[in-house]
């Protein structure tokens, strides 16, 4: 009897320890189970790739490029050739050594016509990658880019093992073999995907033994899962969800100003949004400050004028976008809608406040004679079934540097050009800004592009958000930084000894 009690106690202790070393994070199942482990796939499984792969360069605490797999970099005076010195002694999860060959492979495959990655539009600036030696890669650009390291800081520009991927630049590579802190155990996008600590990680021993990425499509269900202790961490809390965790000692809440936004997209090639006057009338009808207070609460946002560059970015343009109902009515009348306009807006519970924002815009636009009929779509599968398929729909983006977001969302050839914005002048402006070596002139050029988006673009971006996350107080090591900069390898969970 005594022996069996001791055995039971030992089993209980062992199971407790194992549980404490598992970090459980929900993912929103945005691609309905089609999530891919290829970081440049349009259906990239963000939470998995973030932990399985590494980048050449990552965000520092100040948001600027800091070393990751590349320890240093420098450029020729015309900023057309960038040389990256790599970190020595790094191995992939399968034991292969990380070399400049892998850098060349990983960067050049982003340009594949077959894969058609959302990163293609941005990375097409690369002409070739030269392997100087095993630990040195030289990137030769087609044109000058004074901020090129910002581009390879992208969360999807991960380094893959060329050998595991068969050196095939045109095929998806979903092996999951990277150099990141966690390696794949089992992929189950519809259920629980399991990762485990990679002991050979170059950045030291990762903080927990296992990670579980649990599919939970509904934000309220994710909140309930954290309350019930079924997950350890959730992000994108809405203003009214914060009190659920704010004064509870079992949870920690972080609110961080970021360039993240939720907005509405008008496809500029589909009537009536193919008329710039209609697009601007809808944008002018919004009272952004009132909208932000209603949806995100006082202090939870910074207003913006439909330009995606956030206030913390060095290239942000200061624009004025006060509400102008009479101006909106005049534009509508010019466009042939003097008696009012009725449009359908597709929304879903995809990002914090998306449905509420649509309701507020609906209410505000009414004053300008614009009737917005809301069509609610299911959250799971939204990004595959609705986003970029309807004429007017909700969207959500995380923070990106100015050059990246302007190229990724508005260059005519970009895969995620969600407004179908097709302007040769705008593309030329993007090239000119990249090629300008003088900072002030470069800033002025980026500013002109942002002004153009306010005047004629198809995006409605009323505010940039504070990203609000809540997590179990058992966790430590989560710094108050924007989402892409969280270093999950530094996250530990009380009870583990790692």
């Amino acid at each position, binding site marked *: 009897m005594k022996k069996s009690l001791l055995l039971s106690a030992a089993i209980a202790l062992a199971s407790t320890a194992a549980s404490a070393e598992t970090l459980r994070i929900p993912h929103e199942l945005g691609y309905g189970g089609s999530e891919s482990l290829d970081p440049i796939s349009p259906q990239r499984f963000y939470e998995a790739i973030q932990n399985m792969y590494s980048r050449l360069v990552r965000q520092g605490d100040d948001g600027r490029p800091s070393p990751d797999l590349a320890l240093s970099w420098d450029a020729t005076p015309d900023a057309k050739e960038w040389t990256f010195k790599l970190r020595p002694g790094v191995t992939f999860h399968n034991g292969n050594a990380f070399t400049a060959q892998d850098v060349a492979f990983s960067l050049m495959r982003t340009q594949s016509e077959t894969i058609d990655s959302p990163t293609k539009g941005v990375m097409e600036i690369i002409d070739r990658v030269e392997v100087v030696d095993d630990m040195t890669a030289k990137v030769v650009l087609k044109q000058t880019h004074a901020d090129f390291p910002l581009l390879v800081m992208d969360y999807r520009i991960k380094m893959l093992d060329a050998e595991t991927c068969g050196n095939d630049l045109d095929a998806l590579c979903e092996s999951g073999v990277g150099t990141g802190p966690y390696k794949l155990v089992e992929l189950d996008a519809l259920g629980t995907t399991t990762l485990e600590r990679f002991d050979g990680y170059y950045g030291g021993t990762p903080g927990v033994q296992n990670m579980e990425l649990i599919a939970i499509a509904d934000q309220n269900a994710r909140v309930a899962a954290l309350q019930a202790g079924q997950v350890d961490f959730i992000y994108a809390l809405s203003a*009214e*969800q914060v009190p659920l965790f704010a004064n509870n000692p079992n949870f920690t809440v972080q609110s961080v100003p970021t360039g993240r936004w939720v907005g509405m997209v008008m496809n500029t090639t589909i009537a009536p949004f193919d008329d710039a006057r209609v697009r601007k009338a809808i944008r002018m009808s919004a009272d952004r400050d009132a909208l932000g207070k*209603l949806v995100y*609460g006082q202090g939870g946002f910074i207003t913006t004028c439909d330009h995606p560059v956030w206030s913390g970015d060095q290239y942000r343009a200061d624009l004025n976008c006060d509400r102008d109902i009479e101006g909106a009515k005049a534009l509508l009348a010019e466009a042939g809608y003097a008696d009012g306009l009725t449009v359908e807006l597709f929304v879903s519970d995809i990002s914090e406040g998306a449905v*509420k924002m649509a*309701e507020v815009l609906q209410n505000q636009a009414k004053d300008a004679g614009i009737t917005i009929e*809301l*069509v609610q779509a299911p959250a799971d599968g939204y990004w595959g079934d609705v986003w970029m398929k309807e004429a007017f729909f909700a969207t959500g983006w995380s923070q990106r540097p100015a050059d990246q977001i302007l190229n990724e969302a508005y260059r005519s050839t970009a895969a995620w050009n969600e407004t179908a914005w097709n302007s040769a002048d705008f593309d030329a402006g993007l090239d000119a800004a990249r090629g300008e070596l003088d900072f002030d002139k470069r800033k002025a050029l980026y500013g002109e592009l942002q002004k153009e988006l306010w005047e004629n673009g198809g995006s409605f971006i009323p505010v940039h958000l504070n990203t609000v996350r809540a997590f179990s107080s058992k966790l430590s090591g989560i710094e108050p930084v924007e989402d892409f900069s969280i270093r999950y390898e530094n996250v530990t969970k009380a009870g583990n000894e790692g």
Partner: protein
Amino acid sequence: MLNLLATVVSRPSGAIGLTLTLAHVFMALLAPLIAPFDPTMQNADTILLAPSAEHWMGTDTLGRDIFSRVLHGGRLAIAVTFAAAVVATTWGSFAGIFFGTVGGRIDEFSMRIVDAFLSMPWLLFLLLIISIGGAGPATIIPTLGFFYGVAVLRVIRGAAMQVAARDFVTAAKARGEKLWPILSREMFPNLSDIILVEGAMRWSWMLLAFSSLSFLGFGATPPTPDWGLMVAQERGLLATAPWAVFWPCLALSSLIIGINLLADAIGKALGLDRASAMAV
């Protein structure tokens, strides 16, 4: 009719049911006149206020007055489901009386089809049809009317078979009466009590179904004040602002309970035993 009404209200359950049902119908009709605020008016300064003298039921996440929204919240649901209940009761009763009277192979064959429909997960089919046809009343009324009419058919058909075996129907057939006169003169008057109760019951179930559809985003669309939609939008606030969820829940459940009690009392007043009359 007055006698029936007097019998119904003489029972406490009947009086409560009638009061709740009529109160909701009148609130829905008079909502634009008696609601203290515009139910769609958003106000950043009044977000999630607790119930007070100004806002009797508090305010929601967009600062809207919940009392005004609850008053308006039944208008669409009551109108849509009442129309759907009429559709379901009409076609279900007619088909039920017909099959219960003619019997034979036509009846057997039809009942297997009815069995197939009854075995289907209705809500999923409703979602499928509405996702194809759109979420407006033009789709929801016939869809609800059809699916709930199947259940009405089954109940009325069972009752009709009992009536069809009675002497006065046999006598009518012996007199050479044609089918339609038998259905309309002999069968229908003897089944109208059950049809009335059945219709009321299906109405209450449809209210729940419509609210479920709104909750799932397939019924009412924002900014329409609707109980199911209100619960869906504010369901994350149960711990921090329960009033935003409680009042629409109370309104919906009180109407459903009211209709149920009323239907029960009508059935008893008419001498019907609902427990045996309801085959499904």
